[in-house]
C-alpha cells in the first residue's frame, strides 16, 4: 500500500497551544519554515512519523525493494494504554434516564406537564409532559453503580465501567449528530475517528484492515458510508465493513469457478508479466508496490476468513455471547468477532446496534418500552460477555470499549400521547471500559430531570480526546494538513482528555 500525498499531513512538532509566547517554544509555523521553507516538507514528517515508518517495511514482490505501506504500524506519541478500541454504537440514541442515569424524582412526575427546555427534532420547547422512567434502577458491584433493569447482564460488569453522565453534542438531529460522534463535526467530509487512528498508528496486522465496521442486519446507520469515511484523507484510511457470516470482506471471495490453485496460477502469471514490465522501468517503485499489493490481497483472502471463523470457538464461549439465542445471536456473533479481531491486532472496530430507521434502532419516538426492551435485550448479554471474555484473556486492559449513541433522549414525551421521547444532545450518558479506563466510576451529571448536563459537561470532543489519548496519541498534536489548515479530530480549540476516568 503506497500513497502519493497531494495534500499534506503531519504530526506537528512543538508545543501545546499554551505558553508559547512566554517560552518561545517552536510553533507549527516555525516548524514548517525550519523543515525547509514551505509546508511541502510537512508531508514527509507525516509519512515518516516516528521510526515506525522506516522500520516497518512490508515485503516487496521482488524481495529486495521496500514497500512503504501507509498502514504500516507507526509509533504513537507516547506509550499507549490501549491497543484497540471497540466502539459499540447504539445508533438512534438510547435514553439515558432509562438506562444508566438514575433520576429518582422523575418517576413521580410521570404524566405531569412541567417547564423544561428541550431541543430535538421537534424543535425547541419550553415545557413538556414527563414520561417517568420505565425501568427500575439498582446499584451494582462494589462501586455501587446505578444500572436499570434493561441490562441485567451488563450490570454484573459495573465495576469495570466508567460512566460519563454529562455528555453533550452539537446537534439533536441524527444526520449531523452521527457525523459528530464519528468525525467530530456536524459537517460531512471529515475523517472518522477510526480513520484518524489508522492514520496515526497504522495497523498491527497487515493481513486485516485496521479499521472495521460491523453493521446491523437491518442496514447501516443513516448517511451510510459517510460514518466510516476517511473524508479528505486517502481512502486507505477509511473503515472496511466486515460481516460475521458469509464472506467477511467485500470482494474477498474468489469468483465462482476460480479455485485457489487457479487463482495462484493467475497471480503467478501476473507477477511474472509485471516483473518483466518493471525490469525496463527503473526508478518507478510504485510498480513494485502494486505487485506487492496483489500478494497482500492474496494473504488477506486466507487470514480474514480465519479471523471470522467463529466455529472454532468453544460451545461455552459461543453460548456466553448468546449465539444460541435468536435474539442475541447476531449482535453476539459480532461481539465475538470483535474480540477475535482485537486478538489479531485490528485497531478500531465499530459495531452498530440498530440500523435502518425508526424502531429498527434505538430511536424511540413512539413506544419507548417496546423499543428499548428490544434493543437492550438484543445486546445486553453479548456486551457483558465481551467484557468478561476480554478480561479473562487479559485483553481488557489493552482494549477500550466505548458504548453510546449519537445523543440521548428527553425526559419528556414527544407527542401528546405515548411514551416516545425526542432526541437530546444537551445531556446524555456514554460509558467506557477497559483500555486503562478506571472502572466503577461515574463522572458528570445531568439535572434532576436528565434534561441537560449540569456538572462537568463533556463535549463529544472530550471523548475523542480520551480515546486518542488511551491509544497513545496526543489529541492536540495529531493533525492533518488540508485546505490550508491543520485539521484535527478534536478541532481547533485545545481539548483535554477526560482525566477523571483515566
Amino acid at each position, binding site marked *: 500500500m503506497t500513497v502519493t500525498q497531494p495534500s499534506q499531513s503531519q504530526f506537528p512538532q512543538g508545543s501545546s497551544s499554551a505558553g508559547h509566547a512566554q517560552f518561545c517554544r517552536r510553533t507549527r509555523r516555525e516548524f514548517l519554515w525550519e523543515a525547509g521553507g514551505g509546508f511541502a516538507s510537512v508531508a514527509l514528517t507525516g509519512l515518516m512519523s516516528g521510526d515506525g515508518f522506516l522500520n516497518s517495511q512490508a515485503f516487496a514482490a521482488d524481495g529486495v525493494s521496500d514497500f512503504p505501506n501507509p498502514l504500516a504500524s507507526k509509533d504513537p506519541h507516547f506509550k499507549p494504554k490501549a491497543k484497540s478500541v471497540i466502539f459499540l454504537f447504539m445508533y438512534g440514541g438510547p435514553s439515558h434516564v432509562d438506562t444508566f442515569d438514575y433520576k429518582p424524582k422523575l418517576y413521580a412526575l410521570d404524566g405531569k406537564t412541567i417547564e423544561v427546555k428541550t431541543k430535538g427534532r421537534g424543535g425547541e420547547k419550553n415545557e413538556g409532559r414527563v414520561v417517568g422512567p420505565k425501568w427500575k434502577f439498582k446499584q451494582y458491584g462494589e462501586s455501587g453503580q446505578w444500572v436499570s433493569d434493561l441490562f441485567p447482564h451488563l450490570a454484573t460488569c459495573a465495576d469495570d465501567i466508567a460512566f460519563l453522565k454529562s455528555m453533550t453534542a452539537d446537534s439533536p438531529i441524527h444526520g449531523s449528530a452521527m457525523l459528530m460522534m464519528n468525525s467530530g463535526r456536524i459537517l460531512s467530509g471529515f475523517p472518522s475517528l477510526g480513520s484518524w487512528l489508522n492514520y496515526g498508528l497504522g495497523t498491527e496486522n497487515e493481513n486485516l484492515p485496521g479499521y472495521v465496521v460491523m453493521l446491523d442486519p437491518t442496514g447501516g446507520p443513516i448517511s451510510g458510508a459517510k460514518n466510516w469515511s476517511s473524508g479528505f484523507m486517502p481512502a486507505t484510511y477509511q473503515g472496511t465493513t466486515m460481516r460475521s457470516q458469509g464472506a467477511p470482506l467485500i470482494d474477498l471471495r474468489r469468483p465462482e469457478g476460480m479455485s485457489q490453485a487457479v487463482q495462484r496460477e493467475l497471480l503467478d502469471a501476473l507477477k511474472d508479466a509485471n516483473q518483466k514490465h518493471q525490469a525496463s522501468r527503473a526508478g518507478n517503485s510504485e510498480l513494485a508496490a502494486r505487485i506487492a499489493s496483489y500478494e497482500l*490481497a492474496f494473504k488477506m483472502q486466507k487470514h480474514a476468513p480465519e479471523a471470522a471463523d467463529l466455529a472454532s470457538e468453544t460451545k461455552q464461549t459461543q453460548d456466553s455471547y448468546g449465539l444460541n439465542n435468536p435474539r442475541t445471536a447476531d449482535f453476539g456473533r459480532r461481539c465475538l468477532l470483535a474480540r477475535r479481531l482485537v486478538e489479531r491486532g485490528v485497531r478500531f472496530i465499530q459495531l452498530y446496534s440498530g440500523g435502518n430507521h425508526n424502531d429498527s434502532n434505538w430511536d424511540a419516538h413512539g413506544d419507548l418500552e417496546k423499543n428499548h426492551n428490544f434493543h437492550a435485550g438484543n445486546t445486553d448479554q453479548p456486551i457483558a460477555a465481551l467484557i468478561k471474555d476480554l478480561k479473562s484473556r487479559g485483553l481488557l486492559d489493552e482494549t477500550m470499549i466505548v458504548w453510546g449513541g449519537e445523543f440521548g433522549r428527553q425526559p419528556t414525551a414527544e407527542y401528546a400521547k405515548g411514551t416516545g421521547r425526542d432526541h437530546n444532545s444537551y445531556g446524555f450518558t456514554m460509558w467506557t471500559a477497559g483500555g486503562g479506563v478506571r472502572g466503577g466510576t461515574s463522572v458528570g451529571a445531568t439535572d434532576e430531570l436528565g434534561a441537560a448536563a449540569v456538572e462537568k459537561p463533556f463535549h463529544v470532543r472530550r471523548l475523542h480526546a480520551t480515546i486518542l489519548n488511551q491509544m497513545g496519541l496526543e489529541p492536540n498534536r495529531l493533525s492533518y494538513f488540508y485546505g490550508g489548515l491543520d485539521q484535527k479530530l478534536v478541532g481547533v480549540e485545545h481539548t483535554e482528555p477526560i482525566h477523571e476516568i483515566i
Partner: protein
Amino acid sequence: MPFTSCFSIRQQVRQLLFRGMVISAGLWLSTVAVAENNKVPVAQNAQPVVDFTQQIQPLLAKHCYACHGPDVQEGGLRLDQSEQAFKQLDSEAIAVVPRHPEKSEIIARIISKDKDQQMPPEGDRLKQDQIDLITSWIQQGAEWKKHWAFQPPQDRTPPETANHKWVKNPIDAFILARLEQKGLSPAPPADRVTLIRRVSFNLIGLPPTPEEVDQFVNDTASDAYERLINRLLASPRYGERWARHWLDLVRYADTNSYERDGIKPNAWRFRDYVISSFNQDKPYSQFIKEQLAGDELDQVTAETIIATGYYRLGLWDDEPADPLLSYYNELDDIVATTSQVFLGLTLNCARCHEHKIDPIPHQDYYRFMAFFHGLNSYGTRSDQRSFNQTDITGPEISALYARYDEQKNDLQKKMHVMEETAVKKMSGVDQRRSETPERAKLLKEKLGEYLEPGQLKVYQEMQAEIQQLEEQRKQYPPRKMALSVSRSLKEPRETFVLLRGNPHVPGEKVQPGFPEIFGKIETPVPSVPKDRQTSGRRRVLADWIASEDNMLTSRVIVNRIWQHHFGRAIVQTPNNFGQLGVPPTHPELLDWLALEFVKGGQKFKPFHKLILMSNTYQMSSQHSDQADAVDPANDLFWRFNMRRLGAEEVRDSLLAVNGRLNLKMYGPGFYPLISQEVLQGQSQPGKGWEDSSEEERARRSIYIFVKRSLVTPLLSNFDFADTDSSCAVRFVTTQPAQALGMVNGHFVNRQAEFFADRLLEETGTTHPQFVKRAIRLAYGRQPQAGEVEEGVRFIETLIKKHSLKEKQALNYFCLTILNRNEFVYLD
C-alpha cells in the same frame, strides 16, 4: 517523535531515495532543494544579493514569529509585515533600519551576549552565517519583497540554452535552461506507441485502438503528431475527459449528503454544461463568468443559468441543528471553493480570525462573502426546489407550469393543515408514523376517524381537484428545469464580520470587496437592469476574477492545465498559491504560460497544443542514474513521469478494450451495479440507487450518478475525488482492496468475459492469435518475444492442469491482461 530537525529529515529523504522508494509526491523534495540552495550563494560569494522570500523570511518565521508574528506581538513588534518591522517601537528602538544594520535593533538583539537582551530568548541562537545573511539583507536595503504569488506575473523572455536543437518552443527553453544549470540533459524522446497512448489518455481519457496506433506509427509525415493532437482535441471525448478535472474542483455530486442524501435535481445538466464548454473551447473568462454570475450577465441564456448550478453543488443539511450556522456553512463552502479554485487562495482560513499565514485579514473573508450574500440557502426541508431550480423551457410553457405549481401547492397546504389537526389527536405511535413514509397509508386508514364529516368532505374535494390538475398537466409539453441559482435577492442581506466565525455574534458591518492582497482596488458598484431580480454583486466579482489583469486567475488555471498534462503541477498545491503552498518549481515558466494563455484569448485547446508540441512533453519516462542522483523527485522535468490511470480511466479502458464502451453523451447519470454487501451499508439498503440497463452501464464513468454517501466502489478504490470539498489533486494509492476488486470483483470479471468474447469473434480460437490481439488491444504495442507463447502456455495450463473449460481459461487470461501494471500505468 521528538522534534526532528530539518537536517535529519533531509537525511531520511536521502535514505528513502536511495532505497528507490515510491515518491511520486515530488513536492517534498522541492523544498529540500530550495533549502539547500539557500546556502550556495553565501559560500560562493561574499556579497550575494539576498533574496528576502527565500532566505530571510524563513529565518524570521522560524526564530521570531512565535513572539513577534500574527498571533502575538511582544513589545509591539511584528515581523511578518514590513510596515511593522520598520516602525519605531514602544522602546523607541527600530527593529529594521534599511541600509543600517548597526542601527537595527534586530541585529543588536540577535548578537547580544546579555541574557536579558538576547533574541531569541530561548532555544537555538542564530548561526553566524544566518546573522551575516540578515545583516547583508539590511545593508542591501532590506527590500521586503512580497510573496511571489502576490505580485502580478512578469513578462519573461525564454532563456538561452546551450542545446538549441532540443528547444522546440519556449516551454522547452525554460525547462532545458534549468536542466543545463544542473548539468542534466532531458530524456530521449518517447517512442511513438508510448506517445500516442500518453496523449490519448491525456486528452480523451481512453486508449488508442491498435489501428490508430499503427496509423500513427507508420505516418512518416512531419506533421503526424500535430495531426494526432488536432484529431484528439476535436473529439467529443476530450470534453468528457477534461470536464472531470473541473468537476473535481467544484465538488460535483448529484446528492446533498446527510441523513437523506437527497437528490439534487438536474445536477447532471451542470456536468453536461462543463463537458460541452470544454468541447466548444469556451474561453476561460466566459466559463468563469457563466458559473459565478450566469444569471446576472447581459445575455442570460439557458446555458448560463445551468452554469450557476456551481453554487448548488455543495453539501446541504436539510435538517440543520442550527439553521443560521448551517446557512453560513453553505456560504463558507462557496467562499472556500471560489477562492481556492479560481484564485488559489485559502480565504476560508480567515473565517474565524485573521489568516495565520497569508496577509488576509478577517474582514477580507466577509467582504468576499458579501458578494454571495444575495444567495439563499439551497432549500428548506419542505421546499427543496424553489431556491435551486430554474425553468429553462421558455416563457409560455413555464407559465403553464407555474400556474399548475401554484394551484397545487395552495391546495396541498390547506390539506396539510387539516391533516395535522387530525394527526395531533392520534396515538403517539401513529403520530410518529405520520412523520415516516407511511404517512400516506396512515392518512388513508385513519384520517376519516379524526376529521369531522364536513371537514372530511372539503378535504376529499381538494383531493379530487389535485387529481384534476394532474390530469391537465399531463397534456403539457415537458418542462426542462436546471439546478441553478434561483430567487437570488435583489437586496442582499447586510454582511457583518462574524466574531470567531460565529453567526450569532455579528461584529462590524462590511461591504463587498476584493481581498487586500490585490491592492486597494475600488470595488465597482453593481448595476443591473431594472427588470432583473438579482443584485448584480456576483457579476462584479466574476468580472474581476475573469479579468486579464487579475494576478492570480491565469496563473492558477495554467498551473492546473500543466498539472493534468505532466501529472504534477508547477505549483504543487494548485488550490493554494499562498505562503503555505509549495513555491513553483519553474516560476518564470509559470508567468510566461499565464501571459501566453491570456494572449491566446484564454482558450484551452490552443494552449494544450502548445504544451503537447513541446519536446518536454514528448520525452520518454526513461530513468537516468545521473539525473536521479541530482534531482530524484524529477522537479526539473528531466524525464516524463509515469502515471497511474485515474479511476475513470481504469473503468473506461476496460470497456474500451472489450469493445463495449457506450459513447452516448449527456443526460441523467446512470447507476452501475453495486453489490448487495456494499448496499447493506446504507440505512435503507438500495435506497436512492436505481437500476440501469447493461447498455447504460457501459457508458463513460463521467456519467455515473455521484451519490455522496455511496460512491461507486470501483471509482473510490482508485482514488475518486472527495465529493465534499474541492479536490485539486487526487491521491494515488496502491492498496489490496484494488487488487481484490480487480481479481475477484464482479465488474472486472464480467468485462474480462466480454473481452474474451470480442477476441474470439475477431480471432477465432487459435490461441496465439487470441493472445496477440489481446495484447494489442490492451497495450497498443506489438507482443514481445516469447510473450505470445507464454500467454498460450498459461491458457493451456488452465485447461489441462486445472481442467477448466476453454472459454473459462480464455476469460482468466483476459483477466490477467487487465490486471497487469502495464494496463494501469502509462509511460
